[in-house]
């Protein structure tokens, strides 16, 4: 029973929190540009509006186009279940493998790439092809980073990694983890289609990647696609903050109170990290598309150096 409650709680937290992250990032970006910006809760309104609207579907499309939003939401939420928000309520027998997480997210990406090609338009193909390149190039650094943190905690189970990281005092002050953190940060930026890799607010055909892929969607399907993307972003954020800034060891008491406190700390961390992303996004410009390999190479080198430092130091 505890497991069911835990799973329900995790799902609710993830679904409710995901749009907020986007809202915060947009708001902070607007503030840095001396604009007032949309309300923080804007994405919730958008989703509600989209879910109530009727949708337009191209005649060219097949069942893949309709199925994809559900697959994306489902892969993102499954991934969300694999990342413990708080290790307090550690569910007993649920296999949280971090490599599994990567491949569950990849399932969503695969179908997104297919759906983009389904309508037979030009934009979809453009987005799909670019996304394929970006995701291929960052994959090595993602796996190498995962291996480094996995090896440091002698496990590829996310739960074990997070527990092990709690016993490390201030992980970000260890070179291996510092470098891996930066590598994962670049990966996060690339995976969530943010500046400098992609611009989430553009609809210019020359530059858009993610937006080009969801261009054909409207109404309810678009809402699901957006929600799926937001959840995926929150999953990656959660992974990074809970691995590199573990917080459960600071909370002394267990039980419901501890859980609530832990959730609160988690919330604060998510908000803080969102502000960090927003500041980073606001302070860079979008790269030329063929400069992205440079970023990917940098990320890979960070991950690799992190691994090397781990081996040199053994800690």
């Amino acid at each position, binding site marked *: 029973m505890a497991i069911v409650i835990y799973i329900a709680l995790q799902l609710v937290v993830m679904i409710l929190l995901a749009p907020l992250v986007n809202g915060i990032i947009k708001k902070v970006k607007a503030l840095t540009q001396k604009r007032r910006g949309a309300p923080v809760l804007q994405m919730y309104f958008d989703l509600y509006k989209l879910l109530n609207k009727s949708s337009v579907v191209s005649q060219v499309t097949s069942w893949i186009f309709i199925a994809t939003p559900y697959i994306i939401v489902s892969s993102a939420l499954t991934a969300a279940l694999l990342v413990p928000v708080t290790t307090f309520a550690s569910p007993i027998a649920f296999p949280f493998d971090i490599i599994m997480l990567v491949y569950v997210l990849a399932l969503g990406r695969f179908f997104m790439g297919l759906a983009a090609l389904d309508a037979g338009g030009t934009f979809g193909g453009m987005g799909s092809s670019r996304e394929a390149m970006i995701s291929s190039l960052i994959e090595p650094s993602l796996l190498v980073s995962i291996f480094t943190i996995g090896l440091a905690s002698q496990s590829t189970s996310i739960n074990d990694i997070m527990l092990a990281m709690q016993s490390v005092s201030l992980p970000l002050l260890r070179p291996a983890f510092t470098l891996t953190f930066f590598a994962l940060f670049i990966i996060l930026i690339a995976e969530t289609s943010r500046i400098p890799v992609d611009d989430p607010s553009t609809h210019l055909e020359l530059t858009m990647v993610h937006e080009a892929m969801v261009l054909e969607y409207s109404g309810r399907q678009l809402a699901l696609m957006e929600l799926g993307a937001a959840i995926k972003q929150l999953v990656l954020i959660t992974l990074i903050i809970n691995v590199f800034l573990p917080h459960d060891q600071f909370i002394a008491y267990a039980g419901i109170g501890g859980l609530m406190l832990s959730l609160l700390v988690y919330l604060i961390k998510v908000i803080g990290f969102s502000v960090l992303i927003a500041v980073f996004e606001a302070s860079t410009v979008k790269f030329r598309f063929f400069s992205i390999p440079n970023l990917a190479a940098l990320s890979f080198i960070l991950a690799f150096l992190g691994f090397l430092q781990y081996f*040199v130091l053994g800690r």
Partner: protein
Amino acid sequence: MENYFDVLSALILFSSFVLVANKRIISYIRTFQLQACLIALTAGIMGMNSFLKEGKIDILVVCAIILILKVYYIPRLLRKTYAGVEYKVEKDFFLNIPILIFICCFLVLFAYFSVPTIGGTMAGNVNIQVVNSFSLVLIGFFFMISRKKAIGQIVGFLVIENGIFITAMFSTHGMPFIVDVGVFIDLITAVLIMGIMVTRINDQFETIDINQLKNLRG
């Protein structure tokens, strides 16, 4: 305490990778400034440590010199030189950036495998700080090789100097003060001379692409 030095050495190494990944001359200078800040921070921590423990202030003085010289003065000088020369070509390197980065990665590996065999740097086990800072020397060298424009050479030279400086600092935790000061005087002279040379070369040939020096062969 060692933890901070580990992280700082890794970050200094990373800043040199960022340097290699940079495309524009103005951003070389900025990255160099960042690297100098990190080095100053390292020296500062080390200096505070030695001040509190032994009451010596010479590392703190070195830190102050770094701040003035490398964080403020030399970048300013470089910017001035850059503003003085006229060229508008952006592509400044022979190979493309990912390949440059991968070569630098192998340089780090090379340092990792070769430094332990150099006598006297450490007793037995591999010291991460020395490996990182020694890699910095190699990357600085490689940076000089990979860039065409003379300002790239100066930055590369400065990176080598940074590398030597922190290698010395990490392996001895504070060299004799006079050595440090001597090195800095050397450095400032070298940069001044090179800066003047760059301007002169530019005046003479209307470019500072030193790859074109090949044309001087008889």
